[in-house]
């Protein structure tokens, strides 16, 4: 077998893994969009905020330390304790639920029935606000996140492939863990939304507010629930990306990577977010590998968007988006 082909397989596998991480971010978008028709621009910043909060809690950082010191002339930075990862994740999930409540109570409750573009603008505002709050709360240094996920090359796969191809594949342990966690998350969310009482209420609200009210669904409750779940997904994405590349501002930009994933998969489909993520992940890695050298490389920056554009032309609702059925 030619070397090129074997390398291609390795690139393909790594692309799949990267795609899973894209899908994780896209998933957060889809959840909120499905339930409330809001395109949540702040999803990426939510991942950043969640990751920063997690690191902050683990390291025993004093929240708003800078502000407190400036006002009271104190000099506190750390509580001096370290919180175990598991407990810190639970606490951060709690913070995200609180965040969901605040967002619903102070922003979106007042915007019920507004045009989608107004809601979108509100999320842009929310994104910048949250970004500022994150920095103020936990300061803006680049932080290392280690919740004990395995990292580095997976030797088993390396050995195994060496035995077959005489060439060991480089697959990162973290990517494998991310894939497994994402798969579980997606499965759980799909089952929850399809078969549980709350999931049904969530779909009902997404479909028709009036009708949902008339069967006894509280819109507020459903929206808080959805934002909480999206916050939790943001936390998972934040952990994965944060572990991979450190917790820093650029984490919030992964949201932009999720856009082409959404265009491909459709804004309303959970499986679509997954498949879209995989296609983008694999596509951009393979393209960079096969075509990149011929045209000077750095194709990963734009490939996803071009692919999404092509999709927009031929299939505007995305691969799995709801077909626009209109009875006239």
């Amino acid at each position, binding site marked *: 077998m030619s070397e090129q082909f074997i390398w291609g397989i390795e690139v393909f596998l790594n692309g799949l893994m990267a795609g899973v991480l894209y899908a994780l971010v896209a998933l957060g978008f889809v959840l909120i969009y499905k339930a409330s028709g809001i395109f949540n621009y702040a999803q990426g910043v939510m991942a950043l905020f969640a990751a920063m909060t997690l690191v902050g809690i683990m390291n025993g950082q004093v929240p708003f330390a800078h502000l407190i010191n400036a006002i009271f002339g104190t000099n506190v930075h750390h509580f001096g304790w370290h919180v175990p990862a598991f407990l810190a994740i639970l606490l951060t999930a709690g913070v995200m639920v609180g965040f969901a409540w605040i967002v619903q109570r102070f922003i979106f409750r007042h915007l019920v029935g507004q045009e989608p573009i107004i809601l979108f603008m509100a999320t842009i505002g929310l994104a910048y606000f949250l970004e500022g709050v994150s920095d103020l709360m936990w300061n803006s240094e680049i932080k290392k996140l280690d919740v004990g996920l395995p990292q580095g090359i997976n030797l088993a796969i390396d050995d195994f492939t060496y035995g077959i191809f005489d060439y060991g594949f480089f697959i990162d342990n973290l990517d494998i863990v991310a894939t497994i966690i994402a798969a579980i998350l997606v499965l759980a969310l799909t089952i929850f939304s399809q*078969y549980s009482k709350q999931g*049904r209420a969530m779909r*009902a609200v997404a*479909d*028709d507010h009036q009708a949902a009210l008339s*069967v*006894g669904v509280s*819109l507020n409750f459903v929206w808080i629930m959805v934002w909480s779940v999206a916050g939790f997904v943001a936390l998972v994405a934040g952990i994965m990306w944060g572990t991979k590349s450190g917790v820093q501002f650029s984490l919030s930009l992964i949201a932009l990577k999720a856009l082409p994933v959404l265009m491909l998969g459709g804004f309303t489909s959970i499986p679509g977010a997954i498949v879209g993520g995989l296609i983008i992940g694999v596509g951009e890695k393979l393209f960079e590998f096969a075509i990149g050298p011929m045209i000077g490389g750095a194709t990963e920056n734009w490939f996803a968007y071009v692919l999404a554009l092509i999709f927009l032309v031929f299939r505007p609702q995305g691969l799995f988006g709801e077909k626009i059925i209109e009875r006239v």
Partner: protein
Amino acid sequence: MSAVAEEYITEDGRKIGAVVMEMKNITLKFGGVVAIQDISFDIRQGEIRAIIGPNGAGKSSMLNVISGFYHPQEGEVWYKGARRPTMRPYQVAAQGIARTFQNIALFEGMSVLDNVMTGRLTHMNTNMFQQGLWYGKARAEEIANRQKVEEVIDFLEIQAIRKTPVGRLPYGLKKRVELARALAAEPSILLLDEPMAGMNVEEKEDMSRFILDVNDEFGTTIALIEHDMGVVMDLSDRVVVMDYGKKIGDGTPDEVRNNQDVIDAYLGVAHD
């Protein structure tokens, strides 16, 4: 208290119970427009109560007041012997008042079965964690409720379309699915906003039969708005007539038919 609690038997031998809901001096305004002006009437247990009137009379507004979508500026709503505080629609639904809409409000993207299942939401008490685990109580609850839903689906003869997304159904069937969803809630009062609007004769006959059957078999109290006079007079035990937000008649179909104000409202008055 003005509640007259005695039961009575109608002309065609149907048993009507005590007052279950009473509207007292309801006034509803939208800015300067008075949609409902000082209207009082009651709904009795087990009866079919019609609200009729020309277009723009305020019938739908009245139904929206009952179901909590609108909140009247003046007046009181009494339900099961107690004054009802101002309530959000989902709280009203939880109290056992189900409704359908004039312009059909179904969940278009969901299957018929799922749509009807949402009607059971007020009967499901397990919390999110139990649902998430999907074990024991949550599962038993789902199965019990699903059974109830299947009964309703059988009752309204929509078995054949139970897995079809509602968006694909023709108008008449959608109306029936909406009725199924409301029925699945096992309501004490069922509010129907023009259940037969836009239907052909055959569909109207079907719907009339279902409404009578529901009332007969489950003893459900029904309040409905309808334009087709023939249907209204046949179905209902008592009729409220509204015109320009005011009540101009209230009584049995026969009484209403012979009421001069009602005749004027529908046929017009000669101006001389």
